[in-house]
């Protein structure tokens, strides 16, 4: 029996989310093959072949797969699903879009956002924004799982798996990619960063948000995150949102600045190893989850923190 892991990548590079989902896939106990589907995606496939524990990489290259549109990508996965007992992907924007389509085409109920493999057929997943944990057991047939990558450590880099080419599907006749605006940043990616510093509405402007957070982020090589309130107010781009409906992060250090700690936000960061909260309101709920709390004015504390680092 074998597990098929669908890789998260941008053709040129393999995302760390793939290595994390691989750890979950290996916990199912079977051999793992990785599917890298894209266009000119050999660099990503080569990186996948090096991950420890991968037995084989399937590389599908074609125009139809260039932008990972769900229609051709799901068709490719279903066409190759035959021998696999389980199909797994990280719960990224692409994974969350394509895998339920695969599941429905195979008439299987997907298990979303697995945070723990209890047994090869039993999984834990968060519900109600992480306020409860559901343990589910799958029945007969294939398993289709998305993995919350923040809950798993990335697999190592000691493998040397063979790469096999498979045919790409035809173009989707009814959907087309028009364009993308992806923010480029020299900082580490939010979901993979070892340190995350996040800001809330307390910053009062996009200018302050950048002015006070960026110098500290630079010193700590940290990713910058934001609360929903900060994003809604226009202080930060929406892809920086940490929370139930944004990114879920689990860095070694999470510094929440001027964030009150709504349930919605906590759902996205409570798995951080160490949480620091800086807030002028001593009663803010964020202090109930913070390992270290500092009560005071951001505009005084943050420059001082930057100098102290």
């Amino acid at each position, binding site marked *: 029996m074998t597990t098929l892991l669908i890789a998260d990548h941008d053709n040129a590079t393999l995302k760390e989310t793939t290595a994390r989902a691989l750890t979950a896939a290996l916990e199912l106990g079977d051999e793992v093959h990785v599917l890298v589907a894209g266009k000119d995606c050999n660099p990503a496939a080569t990186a996948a072949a090096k991950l420890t524990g991968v037995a084989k990489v399937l590389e599908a290259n074609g125009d139809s797969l260039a*932008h990972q*549109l*769900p*229609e051709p990508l799901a068709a490719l996965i279903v066409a190759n699903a035959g021998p696999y007992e389980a199909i797994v992907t990280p719960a*990224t*924007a*692409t994974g*969350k*879009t394509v895998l*339920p*389509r695969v*599941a*429905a*085409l195979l008439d299987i*109920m*997907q*298990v*979303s956002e697995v945070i723990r493999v209890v047994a090869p057929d*039993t999984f834990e997943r968060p*519900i*109600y924004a*992480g*306020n*409860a*944990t*559901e*343990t*589910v*057991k*799958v*029945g007969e047939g294939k398993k289709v799982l998305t993995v919350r990558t923040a809950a798993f450590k990335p697999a190592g880099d000691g493998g040397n798996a063979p790469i096999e080419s498979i045919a790409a599907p035809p173009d*989707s006749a*009814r*959907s*087309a*990619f*028009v*364009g*993308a*605006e*992806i*923010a480029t940043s020299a900082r580490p990616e939010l979901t993979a960063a070892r*340190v995350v510093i996040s800001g809330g509405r307390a910053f009062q402007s996009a200018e302050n948000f950048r002015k006070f957070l960026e110098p500290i982020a630079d010193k700590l090589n940290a990713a910058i995150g934001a609360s929903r309130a900060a994003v809604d107010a226009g202080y930060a781009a*929406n*892809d920086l949102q940490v929370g139930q*409906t944004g990114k879920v992060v689990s860095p*070694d*250090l999470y510094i929440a600045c001027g964030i009150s700690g709504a349930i919605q936000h906590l759902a996205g960061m*409570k798995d951080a190893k*160490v949480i620091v909260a800086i807030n002028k309101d001593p009663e803010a709920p964020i*202090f*109930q*989850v913070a390992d*270290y*709390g*500092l*009560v005071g004015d951001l505009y005084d504390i943050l420059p001082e*923190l930057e100098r*102290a*680092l």
Partner: protein
Amino acid sequence: MKILVPVKRVIDFNVKVRVKPDGTGVDLANVKMAMNPFDEIAVEEALRLKEAGKASEVVLVSVGESQCADTIRAGLAMGADRGILVRADGRLEPLAVAKVLKAVVAKEEPGLVILGKQAIDDDCNQTGQMLAALLDWPIATFASKIVVDDGEATVQREVDGGHETVKLKLPAVATTDLRLNQPRYASLPNIMKAKKKPLDETTAADLGADIAPRLTVVKVSEPPARRAGVKVASVAELVDKLRNEAGVL
């Protein structure tokens, strides 16, 4: 063109969730229920498309127990034209709901189905994608902008790291993200009017949909609680603790 908007009755997002002591689920007795917030955004978007002359009718559908009629009425009060309640008892999984919706789509023949990207109770994020699969329709998930023209929908989507735009040939499915729009409040006159709008009732069995659950819920538990730590008095103390106690600097 008709737009179909499936709406789900869920625990109100302001309610603090309590896990039942016997681990069978979350306590829903005497708890305020409401329309799933992402579905409200879907209703709003459908109404705006109708107001812009891109759609002729907005039809709501909800699948579940009889109280789901309240959820439909809430959407009718926002301005939707009519509703369909599909009665189904027991725990409903996204695959089951997608099968019911497929049957509703076959009857109603909408040009666009707009759903919330996920329900805030089970957080599955599957139903729209599964419906599109069963219909063999294209889909755009996590929509932050929807433009309908000439038999096509151009959808801006929120993806990891930014935005992307895709073009879908109608009929198609879209799921809403948080920033697609700000849903309107229902005015009192519209709430009164909604009571007279048509609301048909059918059952999952009548639609021939297989809604048997595929997964077994073994238990529902409280997540491990995080203990509150200590308050520090100064930046110097914070940096010292992070360096020497936590070892993360």
